[in-house]
């Protein structure tokens, strides 16, 4: 499982994350990325984090409970 943390003070609204992992990350009305869920097993979150030009998305792998 991946824990998803988005630093909204870093987010600059590029939007690639929401495109690469639409089930997990969405953009709110002000264009900032918001995680729909705190944890996911979808590896798309890794692509979303890698595509962020601000490194605002932190993914940490955790053992499934």
């Amino acid at each position: 499982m991946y824990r998803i943390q988005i630093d909204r003070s870093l987010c600059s609204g590029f939007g690639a994350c929401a495109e690469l992992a639409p089930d997990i990350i969405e953009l709110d009305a002000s264009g900032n990325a918001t995680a729909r869920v705190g944890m996911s097993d979808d590896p798309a979150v890794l692509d979303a984090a890698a595509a962020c030009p601000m490194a605002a998305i932190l993914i940490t792998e955790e053992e499934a409970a």
Partner: protein
Amino acid sequence: MTPPRSVLVVGAGLAGARCAETLRAEGFDGELVLVGEEPFAPYERPALSKEFLTGERSAEELFLRPNAFWHEQRIELVLGQRVASVDRERRTATTSGGRVIHWDALVLATGARARQLPFEAPAGTHVLRTLADAIALRRELLPGARLAIVGGGFVGAEVASTARKLGVDVTLLEAGSAPFERALGPELGVRLAERYLDHGVDIRTETAAAAFHARPHGRVRAVELADGSVVECDVVLVAVGVAPAHELGAEVEPPIYACGDNAGSRGHWTGAAAEAVGAARRILELDPLPAQPPFFWSDQFGLRLQLVGDTTHADEVELEGSHDSFVARYRARGGKLVAALASNQPAAMGGLRLEVAAAA
């Protein structure tokens, strides 16, 4: 090629930090050292001209990751030291503190340094690139102080915006006929210049700083312009761009890699973070990720400007929207969309990014 057992990343800015954490995230298990010249853990540089300067955010709030993160990820931070020399044959690096670090792969993420003007800068003259620069400048931006900013680029404009909020008098000196003329085109430049005037900034265009005048005790008193006129001031910010830091050599071939402002041909226009991820993936011999168009943003005078793509070869600009909230599309000769700018339209950015990517 066998994967490296140790990686040394030189430079602890966004690119260096991102490269190191990507190596770990992609499964690199060897020794990983990140050396940074500044005495701070990797931090968010863009805030230096904005929330940090106003005092809305403290230095602690600028760190890219909590301190525990580096420890948990087994990324050793060596801070407050430069890498003084690299031995490419023996695969070692020696820090300014005398430590010798062995590497199987070396990442140069040394970044860029603020350019200076080619004449003597008296006390009260600043640049803004590092947290230490921002701390020094912040001390001087007191209500009623007179600030002269040399250079109407993004740093100059953002500091002008912040300084006005702090009650500082601002004169902005720009070499072109409008701020951002080269980066964003004359239409946008004129629009932004009007906005700066509305916010009480005195803009002088088509002018260059020729010398600084100092008081008898050494502090800056005025900027002399090329036409001989003089702008009196108490504080100066020199914001005339950055120069890549190439002290360790610009030559990069595996097992030496580069990412960030020292590597990208367009400095801040290309994503330092994307290059850092790319370097980490090359080290681990992973396939590259799909390329993203360059992206940049700036917060100034109540506008959030977001630019995607490259305006270098733009021939015409289409503007739509109001004075505050608008979209500009940059087209090359023949009509191809090469870049798009959104002002206070964050929700439009995603679509514009896809338009630019589709046209590429």
